[in-house]
């Protein structure tokens, strides 16, 4: 078996595993998506957001004041941190809700 074929097998295997994983993730996320729709009227979201903000953001750096950024900037900043800090979407949304309520 040539080196090129071995590499293609690696890539194919990685792509297959990734596809299977993503498919499972989509099905896993169906239930939380419904929760998210109902969550718009959940007044406890801000409380959850305050807790998630404290637990996750202070893990690496000082807690920034909610007044440092505008609501729109918090949207983008937290989206950046959702990737960097491996946050679940629900946690990121809760944090944004808290920051906007405290802004």
């Amino acid at each position, binding site marked *: 078996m040539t080196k*090129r074929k071995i*590499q293609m097998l*690696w*890539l194919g295997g*990685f792509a297959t595993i*990734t596809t299977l*994983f*993503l498919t499972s*993730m*989509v099905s*896993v*996320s169906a239930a*939380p*998506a419904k929760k*998210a729709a109902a969550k718009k009227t959940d007044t406890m979201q801000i409380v959850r957001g305050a807790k998630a903000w404290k*637990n996750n953001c*202070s*893990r*690496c*750096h*000082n*807690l*920034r*004041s909610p007044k*440092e*950024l*505008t*609501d*729109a*900037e918090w*949207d*983008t*900043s937290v*989206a*950046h941190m*959702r*990737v*960097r*800090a*491996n*946050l*679940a*979407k*629900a*946690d990121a949304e809760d944090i944004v809700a808290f920051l906007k309520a405290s802004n």
Partner: protein
Amino acid sequence: MKNLLLGSSMMFIATLGATPSMAQIGEGLVSEGQISENLASQQLLARIISLEEELASLRTAVQQSTQNAAIAREKADIAVATVTKVETKIVKVEKKAKSATYSGSESDAKWHLAGYADVGFVGSNNASGNDSFVTGKFNPGFHFQYKDLLMFESELEFVTNSDGETTTELEYSQINLFLNDYATLVVGKFLSPIGQFQERLHPSWINKIQGAPAGFGHDGLQPTSDTGIQLRGSLPVGETRLAYTLMMGNGPRLTSESAVDTEGTGRDDNSNKSFGGRLGYFPTPNIEIGGSFLTAKVNSYMDPAAGLPFVPTGPTDSRYKLWGVDGAYTKGAIAARFEYLNSTRASLFTVTDDEPLGEIVPTLDMEAWYGQISYRLSNVGGSDFIKRLEPVIRYGQFRINGQDELAEENAQNRFNIGLNYWLSPTIVTKAGLEWRNSIVAGVDSETRYQFQVSYGF
């Protein structure tokens, strides 16, 4: 009325009393019916008196209730007026908030300029080192987001080096595709997800000490970046969660000194992809435990200036393996961290300036670790100045076996103590001492005193 009834009763009794002669005349003259009527009258009188007292009591109660009702009504009027005022204020604040937020808040596309910058001074007892002001770094970061679907983000690094030249590096430039609640696909040049320091702690406004731990900065064991794809996110595990990152990239390259360069490149020199990732687990919100790995093949370094046909006397590629563990405890004012990395590059044939005919370089083993504790004095004393202070201590080691020149230059124990003063949550001034003791015999040790001001924006 009570008096009137009392008067009537007295007259009735007097009337009865005015006819004693009838009783005195003989027992038979007063009939039993008359006696019975008298008794009934007396009972009626007592009942009337009782009712009058009850009526008076009720009247008093009614008057008290009327007064209470008046007071309650007055209080209700005040409350209604207060609520009306608050509602008016809320409407004003909402209008003000809407006017203060730029139009991007409601648009599909939003952007944010972030980043950090630092300046400083470094002094040294080393004969070859000069005490110098350093320009530090300017790292602007750009975040562009489209709905909850996609984000492009990039960070540049501008540095003026010791020769006065300003260099520009693309730290990362990636597109994040939000697949679902728990997964994001990252494509482009990204910071290495190995360990904690490079991806999350290296910005100077986050890093508690002026520089990186030994082996964790540029030219160290810690991979800096890669170009490729990542799948990353977070999975719920009971009450806690698991953070995961899986990556595939162009991978590292061999340097002219037979070391491994882990800077992300725009082209894969050997078509062999690197695979790696990190898993992080949070048993409690204050504790994080992580494990990382990276594996790739590196090709032989062939000096492009030599221009000779070579006959390799050994393998022209070799496996590079890296693994590491990390942990962190962060609660309130205290932050304790630990990281360990270990890498091995197998032996292979290379052609360099020093060996124009080629040679087989031995296996290169490297390991680096550090432990760090910082404590913010926010709960100590009543002085606002003291509350902003943060002592920090860090000790680490970088060991290199298999490449003597690399070891002489970098293998060392590094001990830092520092005192930080936080002007705000994102602006810090740092003062510290750093002792660099070479592990290689015959290499001078060095003591540095360092100052830095950093601003994260």
